[in-house]
């Protein structure tokens, strides 16, 4: 059994990662084909370091993975059919976390 603070953290990471338009765009690009961070950086009016930070957020949410190719790191999307079901179950879990909070509020108020 997963106890305590671990529950929901994966869902939180996924939703946080997808809450940003640049990160959604990066993910869309790398799902089609792997791209290096420098290739990605050319598409956005921001520094290489800023793009790297966005990639790191996506990586922590396990939405992308990085593979070293020579001196570069190639970013790949990790959204398979199984992953899709896992994301949906995460979303459903999030619903229940909110429901449990509201039940606790009702019980506190009575």
């Amino acid at each position, binding site marked *: 059994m997963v106890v305590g603070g671990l529950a929901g953290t994966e869902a939180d990471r996924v*939703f946080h990662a997808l809450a940003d338009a640049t990160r*959604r765009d990066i993910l869309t690009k790398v799902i089609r084909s792997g791209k290096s961070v420098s290739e990605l950086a050319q598409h956005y009016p921001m520094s290489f370091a800023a793009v790297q930070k966005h990639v790191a957020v996506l990586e922590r949410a396990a939405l992308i993975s990085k593979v070293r190719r020579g001196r570069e790191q190639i970013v790949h999307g990790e*959204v398979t059919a199984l992953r899709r079901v896992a994301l949906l*179950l*995460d*979303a459903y879990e999030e619903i229940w976390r*909110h429901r449990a909070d*509201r*039940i606790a509020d009702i*019980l506190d108020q009575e």
Partner: protein
Amino acid sequence: MPVVSSHKDVDTLTMTFVAEFEASVERVWQVWADPRRLERWWGPPTWPATFERFEFEPGGQVRYYMTGPDGEKARGWWTITAVEAPHRLEFDDGFADENAEPVDPKDATHGVVTLETAGGRTRMTTVSTFTSAEQLERMAAMGMEEGMREAQTQIDALLVAGG
């Protein structure tokens, strides 16, 4: 934070969710058994639920709708399959049409709720089993806050992009 644990099984499309509350089993049972309490937590604040039919007994029919920010209604139905007050409730949960009748009675999520005393608190375990990924997707979208719904749409768009 009442959440104790959760377990998700992608192969069986099942989510087990465990939460504990500072209240007796009887009081936690009432948030399920009393429709006026139930509608205070079933839907998100932006989509509050209204239960218009509530037969809380084995074989009983439940009909509800959730009202969105623009007044749109999302309707649902339950068929209660087991009630053992105040410890166990089982029901099928699906989507209903404008006449509040099931769109497809077989297209239902099965829910099992158990309440037990645990160290002076009440432990509530809900096990939700879906029949397909598509059904899970619709259920997940229905109970979501706006922000999450948007994130979910993004996930879908990404999946389409990924083929």
